[in-house]
């Protein structure tokens, strides 16, 4: 399957082409180039997936083989340790290829309508190509170091795209925040990789067991540090602060990068290292479950009171990634039939979530496009104006709430089953969060499409349905969301590679459906009508809690305090003083010395050839004399 290299090379070429020659093209032509390339990439990805899962199928041992159709040594470090670049195909990487290419293609098409007439349209498509290439490189990485390289590239493209409207101050601040926070987390990742490389003697994902056993406590430490990097990218508490701000970027970008693909890189990382986590660091794995559960709960609470629709979706993304991390964290063995179900559930949820969350964001984009605002106060009653957006948005909301027969129901059900199997407490907590999810998603849904309509605004400027380039991706993604639950996902991906039949646990399904229905019912009662007395009186009664949640429990302010007051004042100021006076002082002295010395010796270059010869001979003789003496 050597042709898989195209999946990496084509978007990269498209990036180079659009980046270098893009401004010479008409915007529509540049977009067409980017989209056409991506359509080819998508086709190749599907072909790869088909050939991998059905063409060659399972090997004799009943597992899907891990293939490396392409590999090259990039940087040899010593005889045994080297950094490779290549392509590795295994069930999860092939699954990711399908997810990324699908969502990316949808976003490319959608952006035609959404970004129409924007300044820098060509640049936008160039960056999208760069992102796609990097993300593909990340998932097919043959080793942890290649993953890290592409991980950073993904971070860079995310930075570029968040700051796409670089004339807006908020966008610039948000892009910087995203870059710095994730970069900070990546430091942990890098240290983890270096520990791992040093002690395991390889950067590959399947090291020799003797080396790992000999390394002792270092491997859990390394894996923990790697998780820090993953937590940064996947916006786990307390490193989540960049994601809501990242919504300053264009909405299709939020759909692609900050909902469907890049933010799940942390989940993918844990899944990639899963055999090591299970084998050598189960405690670290369970700790990640706690982090995930807390993040999930926190984000769900915050999402209940946000008024900016993209922020609601951002927090819901954080919360859903928490679900995936929890599902991985509650695994106790690699066998899907006893304790390893979470792995499959997590990957399944990653897959379904990518589709319906992209759908939600793209729908939000249509709405923002129609009312020119992110605030829910500018919306309400939009179902009359935007039927297609309304229908697809509803599908996505039902999916994320976990209503049968939409895809979210199946994946969430598997997660909850895995949680109950791990401990009832975890199961009930996650069920409660699932109920909360249904509540805030329907609060959002009613706030946009029903509820209190902003008639003055809508009279001034009647909202209209988005153009076909924008609604087509919505319909496609909605269709996927409707059908994806029936994919026998366990046949393709499971924790130890053997086929696993997804079966609905009736008790868990009943509990989760009840929780979801309760959440939806509560939201309907509170927000579906013109008058929202219950919601207002609740907000008044719990004013403190409401304000605190609205301000995301002041986590950003705490960061602000720590960075500005503590780090800047107690560390940066003294360091700056040292830098300015001692380091710069030394450099200035060097510069002044160099300047002075160059005045002093300028006589040497007199331009007179006789002098040159004297220097020549004199120099040779002086050298001889020195050598004679030191002999």
């Amino acid at each position, binding site marked *: 399957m050597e042709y898989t290299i195209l999946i990496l090379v084509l978007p990269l070429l498209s990036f180079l082409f659009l980046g270098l020659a893009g401004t010479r093209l008409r915007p529509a032509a540049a977009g067409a180039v980017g989209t056409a390339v991506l359509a080819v990439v998508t086709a190749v990805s599907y072909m790869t997936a088909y050939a991998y899962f059905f063409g060659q199928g399972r090997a004799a041992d009943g597992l899907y083989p891990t293939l490396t159709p392409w590999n090259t040594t990039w940087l040899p470090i010593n005889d045994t340790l080297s950094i490779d670049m290549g392509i590795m195909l295994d069930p999860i990487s092939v699954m990711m290829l399908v997810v990324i290419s699908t969502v990316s293609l949808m976003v490319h098409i959608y952006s035609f309508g959404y970004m129409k007439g924007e300044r820098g349209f060509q640049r936008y498509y160039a960056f999208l190509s760069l992102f796609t290439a990097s993300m593909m490189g990340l998932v097919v990485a043959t080793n942890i170091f290649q993953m890290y390289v592409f991980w950073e590239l993904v971070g860079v493209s995310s930075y570029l795209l968040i700051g796409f409207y670089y004339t807006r101050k908020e966008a610039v601040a948000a892009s910087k925040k995203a870059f710095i926070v994730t970069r900070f987390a990546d430091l942990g990742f890098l240290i983890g990789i270096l520990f791992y490389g040093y002690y395991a003697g390889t950067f590959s994902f399947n090291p020799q067991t003797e080396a790992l056993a000999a390394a002792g406590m270092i491997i859990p430490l390394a894996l923990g540090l790697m998780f820090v990097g993953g937590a940064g990218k996947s916006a786990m508490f307390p490193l989540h602060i960049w994601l809501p701000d990242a919504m300053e970027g264009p909405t299709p970008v939020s759909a692609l990068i900050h909902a469907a693909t890049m933010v799940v890189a942390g989940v993918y990382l844990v899944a990639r290292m899963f055999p090591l986590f299970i084998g050598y660091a189960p405690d670290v794995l369970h700790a990640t479950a706690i982090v995930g559960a807390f993040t999930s709960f926190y984000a769900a609470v915050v999402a209940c009171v946000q008024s900016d629709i993209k922020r609601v979706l951002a927090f819901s993304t954080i919360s859903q990634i928490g679900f995936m991390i929890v599902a991985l964290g509650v695994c106790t063995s690699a066998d899907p039939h006893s304790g390893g179900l979470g792995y499959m559930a997590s990957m399944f949820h990653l897959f379904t979530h990518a589709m319906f969350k992209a759908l939600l964001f793209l729908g939000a984009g249509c709405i923002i496009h129609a009312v020119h605002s992110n605030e829910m106060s500018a919306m309400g009653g939009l179902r009359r104006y935007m039927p297609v957006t309304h229908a697809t948005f509803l599908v996505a909301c039902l999916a994320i709430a976990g209503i049968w027969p939409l895809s979210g129901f199946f994946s969430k059900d598997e997660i909850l089953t895995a949680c109950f199997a791990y401990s009832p407490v975890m199961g009930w907590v996650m069920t409660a969060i699932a109920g909360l999810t249904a509540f805030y998603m329907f609060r959002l849904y009613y706030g946009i499409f029903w509820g209190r309509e902003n008639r003055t605004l809508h009279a001034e400027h009647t909202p209209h349905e988005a153009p076909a380039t924008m609604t087509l991706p919505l319909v496609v993604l909605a269709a996927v969301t409707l059908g994806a639950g029936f994919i026998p996902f366990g046949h393709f991906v499971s924790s130890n590679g053997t086929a696993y039949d997804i079966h609905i646990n009736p008790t868990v399904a009943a509990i989760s459906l009840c929780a979801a229905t309760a959440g939806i019912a509560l939201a309907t009662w509170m927000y579906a009508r013109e008058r929202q007395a219950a919601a207002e009186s609740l907000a008044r009664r719990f004013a403190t809690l409401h304000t605190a949640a609205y301000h995301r429990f002041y986590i950003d302010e705490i960061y602000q305090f720590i960075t500005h007051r503590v780090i800047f004042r107690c560390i940066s100021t003294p360091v700056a003083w040292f830098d300015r006076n001692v380091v710069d002082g030394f450099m200035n002295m060097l510069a002044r010395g160099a300047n002075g010395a160059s005045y002093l010796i300028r006589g040497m270059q007199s331009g007179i050839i006789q002098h040159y*010869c004297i220097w020549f001979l004199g120099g040779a003789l002086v*050298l001889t004399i020195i050598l004679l003496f030191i002999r």
Partner: protein
Amino acid sequence: MNYTDILIYMRHEISLMAVIIVLFVYDLAAGSRGRSRFSAVTCVLLLLHTLVNIIPVHGTAQLFGGMFVYAPLHSALKSMLSVGALIVCLQADTWLRRDDTEHKRGEFYILTLSTLLGMYFMIGAGNFLLFFIGLELASIPMACLVAFDKYKRYSAEAGAKYILTALFSSGLMLYGISFLYGTTGTLYFDDMPARIDGSPLQILAMVFFFSGLGFKISLVPFHLWTADTYQGAPTAVTAYLSVVSKGAAAFVLMAILVKVFGPMVKQWQTMLEIVIVFSITVANLFALRQKDLKRFLAFSSISQAGYIMLAVIGGSAIGMTSLVFYVLVYMAANLAAFGVIAVVEQHSGGKVSMEDYNGFYRTNPKLAVVMMLALFSLAGIPPFAGFFSKFFVFSAAFRGGFHAVVFIALINTVIALYYYLLVVKAMFITPNNEPIPALRSDLGAKIALALCTAGILALGLTSCIFEGINALPSGIW
């Protein structure tokens, strides 16, 4: 020895001689129309010559009783020099299309290729006699090239200074070689080490020999001709002088120091320590104050020569690899810088001062970016090739235990960074009401610049080239 061996192991020299003879006949036979295609013909022939010889023959050999030696690394180096010469020839085309040089274009190419042939012989020499002949073949035509624009005062002056200094250094070197012959009774590299004992006379001989090559590489204190010659010579010649000629000489210096003066390793290492420190520091101090870009690059090339010597000082095989890699990277960067200067000079009526380049980016973004990449590579900023080549020579010297020299060289890279960035600042930041107007460079210059830019970018990112060089035996160890 038989004649097939000559054909195999001297194929670089033989094919280059064939190219020269073909060009010679072509120059005589072709009419004025044929002559207008001279540079194209030369470039094609030179390209063919490079391609035919690009894959090194395995194994080492000695021809003519040890007079001429062959090793795969020699072949690689010769190919590199051919590529350098090819780039120079591509860049020279526009410059030669002038009324006063139109009729003598053939001379330029034939003289350039003759010096290249001289360098081949220098590299392949196994005897001081052949080495000296090669050296002279590489320097005498060079003087003609330097004075090629002989009606211009600066060019004539540069030619005079070059030939006089070259004669002086050759004389001194020959004097040194005669001492060597006197004390050892042989001129063959292989036989000499056994009879080298480090007596005062031999030390004197070694220093004199070193000064001859120090002149070619322009190391302090044998460097004084450099600035005047680089400034006065036509830019294409300066480019050739600064990389191709220097690269060949540096390699030969290392080979002879290790092979012949092996028993005197302590002495020549001390000598190099002194010379490196002075070369890098003095050149940097001078470079700080230059206003003329060609003069500025002259001093930059002296300090780069000092860095090249860092690869020599350890006297190790990895040092040899680092040297060849450094020369390759330096060639890409310096030829790019000179290429841009040449284009600007030819199209803007001789503008070469740093002030002329103010606001250059606004009118000529592509040329400015190429220049910037070249300067970044020369300064050793990662991830460009220059960073890796500097890293390799530093680590070669560090492994040899020359910590103090490496430290001084590192401090000097900071100073160097400052003056390289001065040019970048002029091009990108300093405003100018009358910047150099937008230029259209010709095809040859474009190809040359593209090749150099590709080199600057690719050599840094691919480790296979360094390893490829490392895998080639040099025939010394």
